[in-house]
């Protein structure tokens, strides 16, 4: 038994996470959250370093078209698309993993087939900012996250699809979290979502390689 724990510990302790560095905000907040969890990570735009990591986090706050052109200029889009290890997109990161965004009519990476849409509902204010609940939580997310609140700030959303693993309602029900193969994604900010956010990050970090 002791040996099993030792192996688990060893695996966890040797895990290296790469946080992709590019021209987006919020990378610092994600780094601080990983620091608080005691995770060994590196913030990098180096292709080999990203490809070598056990897990990859693709954070993001910003505008879709300028971010996509930055990623293309640095060939980071190709690197992200072809990753085989568990990879987590956060907020704009999740949206850029989709095929297309209505934000300045931007072609994105196409890891998920969905199109990112603008909230166009008269009854709600845009951006959607604040704490909202996770519904129908499944797949890779800790089941205790059902009905828990997480922090959102966004004007565009990903509609529900077969890749949706958690939903949130804001005038319309949209994808709060997604998964396809080794690609994981959340629309909210786990790094800003107090204890619920810690659970989300741990759910991802515990994914087998």
């Amino acid at each position, binding site marked *: 038994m002791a040996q099993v724990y030792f192996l688990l510990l060893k695996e966890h302790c040797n895990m290296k996470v790469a946080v992709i560095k590019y021209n987006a*905000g919020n990378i610092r907040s994600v780094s601080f959250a990983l620091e608080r969890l005691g995770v060994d990570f590196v913030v990098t735009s180096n292709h080999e370093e990203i490809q070598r990591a056990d897990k990859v986090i693709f954070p993001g*706050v910003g505008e879709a078209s300028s971010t996509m052109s930055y990623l293309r200029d640095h060939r980071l889009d190709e690197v992200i698309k072809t990753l085989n290890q568990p990879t987590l997109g956060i907020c704009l990161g999740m949206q850029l993993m989709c095929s297309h965004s209505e934000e300045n009519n931007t072609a994105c990476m196409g890891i998920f087939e969905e199109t990112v849409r603008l909230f166009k509902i008269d009854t*709600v*204010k845009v*951006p959607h900012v*604040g*704490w909202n609940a996770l519904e129908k939580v499944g797949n890779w997310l800790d089941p205790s996250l059902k009905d828990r609140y997480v922090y959102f*700030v966004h004007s565009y959303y990903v509609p529900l699809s077969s890749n949706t693993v958690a939903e949130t309602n804001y005038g319309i029900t949209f994808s709060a979290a997604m998964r396809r193969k080794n690609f994981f994604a959340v629309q909210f900010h786990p*790094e*800003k979502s107090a204890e619920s956010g810690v659970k989300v990050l741990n759910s991802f970090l515990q994914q087998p390689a």
Partner: protein
Amino acid sequence: MLTKRIIACLDIKNGRTVKGTNFVDLRDAGDPVTLGALYATQGVDELIFLDISATQEERKTFASLVEDIAKHINIPFTVGGGIRSVKDVAPLLEAGADKVSINSAAVHDPNLIEELAKEFGSQFIVLAIDARKLDNQWTVYTHGGTQPTQHKLFSWAKEGQQRGAGEILFTSMDHDGMKSGFAIDPLRKLNHLLKIPVIASGGAGKKEDFLEVFLLGCADAALAASIFHFNEIPIPELKKYLKDHHIPIR
């Protein structure tokens, strides 16, 4: 459902919280990180740190404080005070702030709102407006509420939205510090006028004031300072009260 937010505001001078507190069990209530972390543990939804330092020398400590806050606090926070340009904002966001609030500088140069929104995105920009009723008109004041301007609250808020502000933080100077409730009528009007969220500030004195500001003032968030600092209304108690009254609260 999106919940209504309770926001605690901390005034900072030379890296320390300004107003006293009566958290007897808190080792250092003058330390913004310690106090902010306490509020986060108590369930506050957001924090605002306003640098009220008078000199550039004092202000220098602010960016490193922001980094310290981001390191230790896992809920969203806004920073403001003395921001005049895109150049002032970059180090604050780089240090880990989620939003910045601008006030006087935006009144003097409204283009600043557009510049900041273009550079960092609207979700980063909170337009803070201090106003009081003057000759039956809600008049905008700058410089900590000392200087009246030509701007009127409603048209200025609308202009702020059009120029790219992501949220409006409205402080009624007539209500601030009175502890007799928020300025319900102008808040209600702002809410109907704007498509961006409105944060109500000034006047919180009891739990009922928060219920009123959400139900009648239609505010998206409510901010208070001293009643939290002096623990007159403990945050968990406030949130329970609002939940019991069917307000969507985290």
